[in-house]
């Protein structure tokens, strides 16, 4: 079901199978920053990945053990589990351009 389209992430988003984008957002409690991060992420996904993504919100205050698995240090951290390779984006995701670059939705401008 989760079909990988190699090279497709490079330049633009092609419609892929639903939930091909598996995203995890790590936060610690309901802070202003984590709320902002979640809102920013939701917005970007709706704009660029409508229908193809799934966001899992993980509160490390509730599940501190999960921080080790994904090597979480900074918070908030967005982890792109799928498509591979795994990508990490930290911060409140307010810089939209950088989020898109981080998710490989836009080429990195030198």
């Amino acid at each position, binding site marked *: 079901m989760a079909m990988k389209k190699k090279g497709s992430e490079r330049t633009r988003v092609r419609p892929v199978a639903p939930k091909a984008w598996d995203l995890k957002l790590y936060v610690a409690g309901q802070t202003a920053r984590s709320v902002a991060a979640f809102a920013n992420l939701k917005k970007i996904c709706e704009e660029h990945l409508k229908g193809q993504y799934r966001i899992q919100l993980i509160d490390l205050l509730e599940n501190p*053990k999960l921080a080790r698995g994904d090597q979480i240090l900074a918070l908030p951290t967005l982890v792109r589990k799928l498509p591979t390779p795994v990508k990490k984006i930290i*911060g409140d995701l307010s810089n939209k351009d950088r989020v898109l670059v*981080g998710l490989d939705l836009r080429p990195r401008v030198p």
Partner: protein
Amino acid sequence: MALATKAVMIRQQLDKCPTGVRGLDEITSGGLPKGRPTLVCGSAGSGKTLLGMQFLVMGALKYGEPGVFMSFEETGEELAQNVRSLGFDLKDLEAKKKIFVDYVHVERSEIEETGEYDLEGLFIRLGNAIDTIGAKRVVLDTVETLFSGLSNAAIVRAELKRLFRWLKDKGMTAVITGEKGVNTLTRHGLEEYVSDCVIFLDHRVTEQISTRRLRIIKYRGSTHGTNEFPFLIDNDGIHVMPITSLGLKHVVSRERISSGIPRLDAMLGGKGYYRGSTVLISGTAGTGKTSLAAQFADAACRRGERCLFLAFEESESQIGRNMRSIGIDLAQWVKKGRLQVQAERPTLYGLEAHLAEIQNIIPRFKPSVVVIDPISNLSTVASFIDVKSMLIRLLDLLKSQGVTTMLTALTPAGRSSLESTDIGISSLADAWLLLRDIEIGGERNRGMYILKSRGMAHSNQVREFRLTPHGVDLLDVYVGPAGVLTGSARLAQEAREKAEAASSEAEIEIKRLNLESRRKAMEAEIEAIRSRYKAEEAETERHLVQARQRQVLLGEDRVRMAKSRKADRG
């Protein structure tokens, strides 16, 4: 009084957390500040990680304090492998929940920064690890990696400051490692945040020999040794050598022990060296330093004591063979376990490694006598100052254990003064024997004298020192107009004196005989006079008797004549 109370209060406030690292607890008088972070900095490969790991392992094994190791550089697997060679079973300690290893992976290229963030994730991980095993100790190795992993240095800086505060609030005794910067202790100035205790590790290579050193730069509210202390990493981990802290407090012995040479004992006030003293034998090449030392070792073993012989020049079998030629059988003592010969080139390790090795052997072998032959060879691996400081520490250690030490030192030929040693350690020696060669009459012989011997009357005579098939022998030397006579010159002198003595004896005999004959002549004369007197006496006696008889006869005649004349008278 008030001062004393204050001092007690401070001591109570400053709880220490023993590291279990040999030597470190001594120079810090008890360990690291309890419940506070300590910064351990140094260049790559200086032993920071190991120090942290040993702190945790010892805490878990010896002091019942579980610990968290947060590694930013090596994975748990790598760490476990690295310390396995030191006998630490990290996996086992992890399984027993005594140590928690968390590998933190930070790679800048994998992380995109998009706005405000903090390092709460790190706090949560660490907090979780601490709670899981009930940790009392924490090691962060090396948090500075965060600076290269994250581009916003301001955030990292602020968060680290918060982290150290947080660790303190949680009462964690923490070791934070930091890489040495160009002109700073750490590359990112961690010393600004961790200011309770700062330990600096250094790894220097001088003339191909590496030496590790440890220095406590700062220890707030506690006294500490400020020197650089050499340390090494051996099979049991880090080993700091704080022997300089021993001071001059050892109790001296009055017991005397034999040098193995009766004549030398006689020179040393008749009894030999003091037990626990340091004896230095110096001399030029081939003057018999090793032989004298071997004789001493042999005597110790003969008394049933144990002797450690550190040979820096010859192998065990070579010493054995050479000493057998002068009638000293060292092999028998080795077999009986009384003699341990430790032969190695000084260049094999650095000075500290030698010192540590000796330190390791002494408690196990418990020698009462240690011979180091020669100390002058040690200067091939380090500067004179280093050798001297090492020897001071070694001798202090040996003295504190009541071990009698014999050091031999080579004096380079052609020195203006023989009474100096390369390393300038003569002041450390309690007794100093000087061996020198005496060249006279086309011969080279050995001479020996006692330069000093603290605390005993000793001979000031130069003795000829001979190596005979049955050991070392000391002989009187002759002091003549040409100087000290040894060897054949001495033999010639002896012969001459013998001859002189013999001729004078003959003269006396003649005189005695003369006297005897004169006595006899005199007695004969006396006898003659006596007999002459006796003859005269007898003659006189005879005359007297005749005279009396004549008178008697005359009387009778007169009577007869009167009768015949019929005299009317009578």
